[in-house]
């Protein structure tokens, strides 16, 4: 009987089929396409979800998969390029998350797009289908190059969907910005992919079967050999001679190059600027981008090749610091935003900062945990925001809302569930995962790697801001009195909006229970299910993808050591900070007629409103530095390069015309020149040959 894993390739291919259906039917026979392509999309993603869950159970039975599907470049005496699938606990978990969120987003789109009478629906659903396909294929990619290709496809899809309303002014520009900024990071990623191939001769994440190698494992061997144990793999030794760097340094360079793509896609400082603008896209697309696909791809990639990063303490520290800084930095900007989706956008940046912080501080489980919980509560928040936006007739300004609590209870309570999760209030999902990240940062920071304490401090401080902006958003939107006519009489929403909200609302409240580390420590009960899930098997090639192995790498290679700190006090601190932030929001904004308090911030307000001038300096970089540089290069090209080329050609043409003149047409001239030429040859070779 065919097992679940035999159907794994179908998981991404189903949404691809729905993409094709929406595209082709939408073009040739739009009338035949039910609901503008929504139905095929829903069916396909539901199918993916079912298969993903089935795969999940198969994996839980210890049934893993790594299989080459198609080799599209066969290398002779060198590496080959192929597509393949890799299903391990991490991938299986991500498959379920992505297909679930994609399914719910499709359903929600019925309410958000179809019921609102949008045009161009086949294009929209084709984009969603392709987006889901790309992300699912990225998740099951078994090598870095395939991951890169689908990573790029994800970027392309985000461009198509953010710019869905291409006739308006904002969306096309936002789409371009998202595309270009992430492309900037991907450029480094591409070089990184090439570097990985050049260094290791393979880009596989895991090696199964004869003669296969996995680059993280080869890196481990190389570093071990550099430390005096075992032998350096041949290709690595050869290439290190070429670059002339030590293994540790070179691998760090490679790791940072790949990280460039991650920073772009996961919207980490300083490449985060595209993400708030991306709010121009339809809200379900924002949900998909932020929760499960594009932004998640970056963090997932680091987790996917964690066996490589765990070897490199420098890179880990950079990841942790970038993550911690982004978490804090984005949270502070979220405090002053007036539009619902803008707040959520900055919260996304901040939350992914936490995940990076977790990965950088050795909290692989914690970061993955947060990736999962965040996927659910952020999808929930966006869909909730979408519901509010429908109700508010597409007005997103929170100062025009208020008092929506009574009008739309389902949205309110689910949104509240998501907000509690985001703010990290016990026992909602975000509390457990965020707390675990901070805990890991603390113990390793207090242990052997004090630099991580800086990252920890930033992450901790961000908790306060997170609590504040989250509840500022909740109070402004739902509490108090209605501040506009629309808010007094909001538009109703249908089942197709409520259903996804309820599913996600329940998940946001409960999904954190799968890994309650403090409770486990306290009671001694064996309830860290996620940790067990990701621990990895023993004795097979897949054990290299498990947390046990990563932990061993962190200790042996990155020099991480944990201090013995009980989890309760740090948990209490972060909970207190979250509650403090929420409480401040309560005091300031949970009143009938809230007013803006931003004036009290003084000069900081302008800075925050302008997002720390991030866009400005990047525009300045583009216009003030890159453009003159490009002009100079152009001038060089036009003047010097073209000048030389033109000079050569005019010299050629000139000498050509001289030669024409020699060719006078008078045959006696020819005879004379012929003879002279012969004499010249005779003299030259006679003298050199010593004939005379």
């Amino acid at each position, binding site marked *: 009987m065919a097992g679940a894993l035999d159907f794994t390739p179908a998981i991404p291919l189903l949404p691809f089929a729905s993409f094709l259906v929406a595209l082709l039917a939408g073009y040739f026979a739009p009338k035949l396409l039910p609901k503008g392509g929504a139905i095929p999309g829903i069916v396909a993603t539901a199918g993916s979800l079912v298969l993903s869950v089935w795969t999940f159970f198969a994996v839980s039975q210890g049934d893993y998969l790594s299989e080459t599907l198609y080799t599209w470049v066969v290398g002779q005496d060198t590496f080959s390029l192929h597509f393949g699938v890799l299903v391990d606990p991490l991938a299986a978990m991500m498959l379920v998350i992505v297909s679930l969120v994609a399914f719910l987003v499709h359903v929600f789109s019925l309410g958000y797009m179809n019921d609102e009478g949008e045009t161009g629906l086949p294009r929209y659903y084709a984009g969603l289908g392709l987006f889901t396909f790309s992300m699912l294929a990225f998740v099951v990619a078994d090598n870095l190059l395939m991951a890169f290709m689908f990573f790029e496809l994800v970027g392309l899809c985000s461009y198509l969907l953010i710019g869905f309303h291409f006739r308006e002014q904002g969306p096309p520009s936002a789409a371009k910005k998202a595309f270009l900024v992430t492309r900037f990071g991907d450029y480094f990623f591409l070089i990184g992919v090439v570097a990985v191939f050049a260094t290791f001769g393979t880009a596989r994440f895991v090696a199964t079967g004869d003669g296969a190698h996995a680059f993280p494992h080869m890196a481990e061997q190389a570093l071990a050999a550099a430390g005096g144990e075992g032998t350096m793999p041949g290709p690595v030794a050869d290439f290190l001679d070429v670059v002339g760097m030590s293994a540790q340094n070179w691998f760090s360079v490679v790791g940072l190059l790949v990280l460039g793509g991650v920073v772009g896609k996961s919207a980490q400082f300083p490449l985060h600027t595209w993400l708030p603008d991306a709010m121009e896209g339809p809200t379900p697309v924002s949900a998909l981008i932020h929760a499960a696909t594009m932004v998640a791809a970056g963090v997932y990639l680091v987790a996917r090749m964690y066996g490589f990063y765990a070897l490199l303490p420098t890179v880990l520290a950079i990841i942790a610091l970038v993550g911690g800084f982004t978490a804090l930095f984005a949270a502070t900007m979220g405090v002053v935003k007036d539009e619902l989706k803008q707040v959520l956008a900055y919260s996304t940046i901040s939350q992914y900062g936490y995940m990076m912080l977790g990965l950088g501080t050795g909290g692989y489980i914690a970061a993955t945990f947060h990736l999962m919980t965040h996927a659910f509560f952020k999808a929930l928040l966006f869909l909730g925001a979408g519901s509010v936006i429908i109700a508010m007739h597409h007005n997103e300004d929170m100062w025009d809302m208020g008092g929506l609590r009574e009008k739309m209870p389902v949205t309110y309570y689910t949104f509240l569930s998501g907000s509690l999760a985001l703010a990290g209030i016990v026992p909602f999902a975000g509390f457990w995962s965020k707390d675990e990240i901070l805990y890991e940062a603390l113990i390793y920071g207090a242990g052997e790697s004090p630099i991580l304490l800086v990252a920890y401090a930033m992450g901790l401080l961000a908790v306060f801001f997170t609590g504040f902006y989250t509840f500022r958003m909740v109070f402004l939107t739902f509490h108090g009195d209605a501040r506009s006519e629309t808010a007094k009489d909001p538009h109703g929403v249908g089942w197709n909006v409520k259903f996804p909200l309820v599913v996600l609302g329940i998940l946001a409240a409960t999904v954190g229970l799968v890994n309650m580390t403090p409770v486990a420590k306290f009671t001694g009960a064996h309830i860290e299910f996620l940790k067990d899930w990701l621990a990895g098997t023993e004795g097979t090639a897949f054990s290299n993808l498990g947390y046990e192995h990563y932990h061993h790498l962190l200790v042996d290679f990155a020099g991480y050591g944990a201090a013995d700190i009980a989890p309760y006090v740090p948990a209490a601190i972060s909970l207190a900070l979250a509650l403090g932030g929420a409480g401040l929001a309560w005091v300031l904004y949970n009143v009938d007629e809230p007013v803006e308090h931003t004036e009290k911030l003084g000069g900081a307000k302008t800075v925050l409103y302008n997002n720390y001038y991030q866009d400005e300096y990047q525009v300045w970089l583009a216009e003030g530095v890159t453009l003159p540089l490009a002009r100079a290069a152009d001038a060089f090209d036009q003047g010097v390069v073209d000048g030389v080329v033109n000079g050569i*050609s005019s010299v*050629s043409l000139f000498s050509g015309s001289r030669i024409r003149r020699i060719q006078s047409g008078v*045959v006696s001239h020819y*005879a004379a020149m012929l003879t002279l*030429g012969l004499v010249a040859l*005779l003299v030259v*070779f006679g003298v050199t040959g010593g004939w005379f």
Partner: protein
Amino acid sequence: MTELPPLTPQLVLAATALVVFGIDTLSPDDDTNTLLAGVATTGTLLSAGIAAWFLSAGTGDFSFVQFDGALVVDALSLFFAFVVGTVATLVVVASHDYLADQEHVAEFYSLTLLAATGMSLMASANSLVTVFISLELASIPSYVLVSYLKTNRGSVEAGLKYFLVGALSSAIMVYGISLIYAATGVMGLAPIAETFGNGVEFVGVLGLGIVMLVAGFAFKTASVPFHFWAPEAYEGAPAPVSAFISSASKAAGFAVLFRVFTTAFPLEVIAGSVVDWSLLFAALAVVTMTLGNFAAATQENVKRMLAYSSVGHAGYVLIGLAALQSGGGAENSFVLGASMMHLLVYGFMNTGAFLFVALAEYWGVGRTFEDYNGLAERAPVACVAMTVFMFSLAGLPVGGGFLSKYVLFAGAVQSGFAWLAAVAAINSALSLFYYSRVVKAIWIEDPSDDLALTGQPTGLYVAVLAAAVGTVALLVAFDPVAQTANHAADVLFQL
């Protein structure tokens, strides 16, 4: 079972020439153009086919010495017999339409066949005497063919210039041969080399003789400074004759050049004591390709441009001798083989290009680039073929010219002549400029209003298309050619 004599390809050509004469003698007044063309085509095709057959059957693995060492049949001679036979076939087929209105048709065919016999024999010549005789056998009919259009001043003038320069060159060459004989006392190529076994005597006389001999070959291959006749002759001659001289005659000149210098004057002995002829050819190669390409770039007349490009290609082929080195084994075979491959590919693409010019002359569209404007709208198929020829000549991968140039340059690099390959590559890039002018004219420019093409020159079309198919086929089926050419070079060095 009887065996065919090893010289069958040459014998067939000579016999066909006589048959053509015979037919004309028997019926001098009838319109026998088609019959004569048919007979001539059969003969040339048969000659090329037999050469190919001999090659594949392994006849070329040995040296079949004929007439006491005066002639020899080996892989090199068969390879060039095939080249000459193929080019002659294309030319004869194309001439059928070109000559339709002329009076002395039989003379044209038989002279072409006799010249082809001479060229084919040049590849087999194994003694300085036969070298000279076969060279003259190829040259004298060529002079006549160039001035074949007796009432056309350009044709007659071109023929006269060709003849005068040719006579001068022949004189220099035969003087050189006499000096070599004076220094060595023998005429056979192998015996000359044997005399060096006891040390080289009369160094000055021998050196003078060798350089003068080079002059004779340089004339035949249109290398600088003996190239002056080429633009004039190619431009004035009927286009099929230009095709014939620039492809087959050049190939034959190189064939005999290769044989004489590798057999009679081994680089190991001569380079140190008399004259470093690989350096001499390197100098000639650089000057020839540079001058040819630079001059071609400024031409307005397509046929003249092709003439200079033909000079430039002679420069490329000279690399095959320039890059030889003392004691080099496989590298020498490789680079010399590469030159031979280039000559074969060149036989198709250059002949095709000149025959396209013949087609244009047949239509009477004029000779300059501007006159070719928009031809593609009227004659798309022929223009596709012309595009293939032009790009293949420039070395773009649409035809065999890409691979043969590539192998040639690679061979030069491999032998340690990277600078020579670099010069050739720069020249090759320059050549793209003037070749693409033709392509631009026929495809991109708009035709003038009164551009009308009349007539259905089937033979010309067939020849042009066959050349195009050959050019493209050599791109995909290059390997057997490369094997054969390398093998031929191997045989030349070893036996």
